[in-house]
């Protein structure tokens, strides 16, 4: 067996730290890479080693294949974990690793090519007998071609980047007049995000549920699935909340879709962790949507209900070990929900809110996990994703998990930048969510619940008093005429004697 001793993590932020945590538990050394914007980022400080790889824009650093290969060789890393995003689904990168004798923790370049390209993936799935959403057979190269295809499929349609993922380079088109501008925008975003502007077009299924299956395959032809994740709560085609099990799921459907996912993985001799995404309509028809040949952002909820460390499994598979987990031994225990905390302003169309974290307090206690990377005083760079952490809770039942999520969101305080925390708390109090009756239109359908309807508390006067005292404190510190008010000297205002009512 080729045991891995040192892993270069070709990523940043929470996922880089999450991977390094497992490395540490496996006594594997970790190597961080960082761009100019990330010298003080936590992943640099968490790693055993750290190397600079380029300027702030990801195209010059985290997407710089040759520089990262060079650092891997320089540091003596025997493997590279790409995380999600960046180079995680880049077949050329996987191939370069292969050429240099570095283990790429993920599937083979051929499989990335086949599944990572959404057009090829559709073809592969159709051949394997798995239902797909009607759409173009290949990428469309010109705007005229797009127009023709859309007339054939019929509106509404979804335009998607072939190389894409995570909602980038995606546009929904309802009206004919928006076709040209939407194709143009999708291609421009795809180009800057993935360096590839090819897009394809799919029939848009209304009221769809976005449900995905986690799979693991080894190099010996074994594959299993680790149940589903319900990812329908989305804004701007980006996931906000995921949960497992899905409230929509039945044991029969789980069995059927799980088997399809395993078949899909076996069809391409998949090795590593991957995700098969499906659209499910209200009649429980399911369509293959895409395969992600990497770890997903939302993998922790699967870890929580199965008790399996997915990064550890990825590493063991990459070492060539056989899967030790048997499908029939796997059980889905309890209920887990993840909320993604973004630096954004939900009351202003989810506008990103970069800036400096003033203070942060993280929720703790029973059934709560946070995977984050920011700290007090950290300046969130404008160059990358606005996700600053993931809050994952577990409960014995869905009801307990929702209550725990509310409690955890209540405890979670980040100041200095705007975040989605209070918005997520409102989702947890929305009847449709509580009843588990939602599809990907949840956010638009529930606007009235999700608006900030002002103060349920009556604390204005206390805020006024706080600001007043702070003001007195400040003028006291700069003026000489002491008005009998003792200013704060230490973190907690020192008073010779603390009084009590």
């Amino acid at each position, binding site marked *: 067996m080729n045991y891995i001793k040192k892993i270069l993590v070709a990523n940043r932020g929470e996922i880089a730290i999450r991977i390094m945590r497992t490395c540490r538990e496996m006594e594997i050394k970790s190597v961080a890479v960082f761009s100019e914007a990330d010298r003080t980022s936590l992943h640099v400080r968490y790693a055993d080693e750290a190397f600079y790889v380029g300027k702030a824009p990801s195209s010059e650093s985290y997407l710089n294949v040759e520089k990262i290969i060079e650092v891997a060789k320089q540091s003596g890393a025997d493997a590279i974990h790409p995380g999600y995003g960046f180079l995680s689904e880049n077949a050329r990168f996987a191939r370069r690793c292969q050429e240099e004798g570095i283990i790429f923790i993920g599937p083979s370049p051929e499989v990335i090519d086949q599944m990572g390209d959404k057009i090829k993936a559709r073809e592969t799935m159709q051949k394997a007998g798995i239902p797909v959403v009607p759409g173009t057979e290949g990428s469309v190269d010109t705007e005229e071609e797009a127009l023709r295809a859309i007339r054939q499929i019929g509106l509404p349609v979804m335009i998607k980047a072939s190389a894409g993922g995570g909602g980038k380079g995606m546009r929904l088109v309802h009206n004919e007049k928006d076709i040209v501008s939407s194709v143009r*925008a999708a291609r421009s975003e795809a180009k800057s995000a993935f360096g590839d502007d090819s897009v394809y077009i799919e029939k848009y299924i209304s009221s769809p549920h976005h449900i995905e299956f986690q799979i693991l395959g080894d190099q010996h032809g074994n594959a299993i699935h680790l149940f589903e994740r319900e990812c329908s709560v989305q804004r701007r085609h980006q996931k906000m909340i995921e949960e497992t099990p899905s409230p929509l799921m039945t044991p029969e459907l789980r069995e059927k879709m799980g088997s399809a996912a395993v078949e899909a993985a076996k069809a391409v001799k998949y090795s590593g962790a991957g995700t098969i995404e499906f659209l499910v309509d209200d009649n429980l028809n399911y369509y293959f949507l895409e395969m992600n040949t990497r770890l997903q952002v939302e993998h922790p909820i699967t870890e929580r209900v199965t008790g399996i460390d997915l990064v550890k499994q990825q590493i063991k598979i990459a070492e060539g070990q056989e899967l030790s987990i048997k499908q029939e031994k796997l059980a889905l225990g309890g209920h887990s929900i993840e909320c993604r905390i973004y630096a954004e302003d939900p009351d202003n169309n989810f*506008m990103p809110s970069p800036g400096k974290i003033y203070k942060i307090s993280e929720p703790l206690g029973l059934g709560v996990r946070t995977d984050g990377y920011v700290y007090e005083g950290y300046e969130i760079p404008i160059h990358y994703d606005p996700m600053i952490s993931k809050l994952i809770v577990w409960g014995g039942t869905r009801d307990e998990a929702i209550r725990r999520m509310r409690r955890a969101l*209540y405890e979670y305080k980040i*100041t200095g930048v705007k975040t989605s925390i209070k918005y997520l708390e409102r989702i947890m109090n929305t009847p449709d969510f509580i009843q588990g009756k939602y599809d990907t239109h949840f956010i638009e359908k529930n606007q009235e619940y999700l608006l900030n309807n002002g*103060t349920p508390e009556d604390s204005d006067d206390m805020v006024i008093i*706080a600001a007043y*005292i702070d*003001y007195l404190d400040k003028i006291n510190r700069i003026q000489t005429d002491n008005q009998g008010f003792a200013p704060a000297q230490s973190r907690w205002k020192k008073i010779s004697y603390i009084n009590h009512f």
Partner: protein
Amino acid sequence: MAVEIKINDRLAWVRLVKQNGNLLEVEVDGKIYQVDLLHTQDGTFSIIENGRSYNIELVPQKQPKKYVAHTLYDTFNVEVVDAEARYLINRGSNGVGKDEKTITSPMPGKVVKILVSQGDIIKKGDTAIIISAMKMESEYKAPIDGVVKKVNTKEGETVEGNQILIEIE
């Protein structure tokens, strides 16, 4: 010393009646509160009033005397209006109407594309500039019909929040 404090749209009058260490008697708009108040220098407040425990975080803003205040569920814009502040307001340093003739960046980001040049005629709603921040591209449109007076940035440049990007007249 009494001052006025602006909290969102409300203007409140506040005065310290007396202090005994951390026990304060404060009057807010004629109502007297007895509070047990402790705070850190960097704005974490713990207030107990009539048995209720309040946690308030004040985040200082660039302008002195302005805060963003966080309670458990709410965020407030707070401003202390003392004699100096009133003087500045009366002098009219807060220009009105200027905003309508400019395109401003609401957040820091990078200029992806500028679609207009100085002297161009632009119609209300036309996209003038595209800014990218945190992997999202946003189009900014002209607020009025007019002529581009000045373009204050160029493609590829990093801009600050609240920076005036394009002036129209």
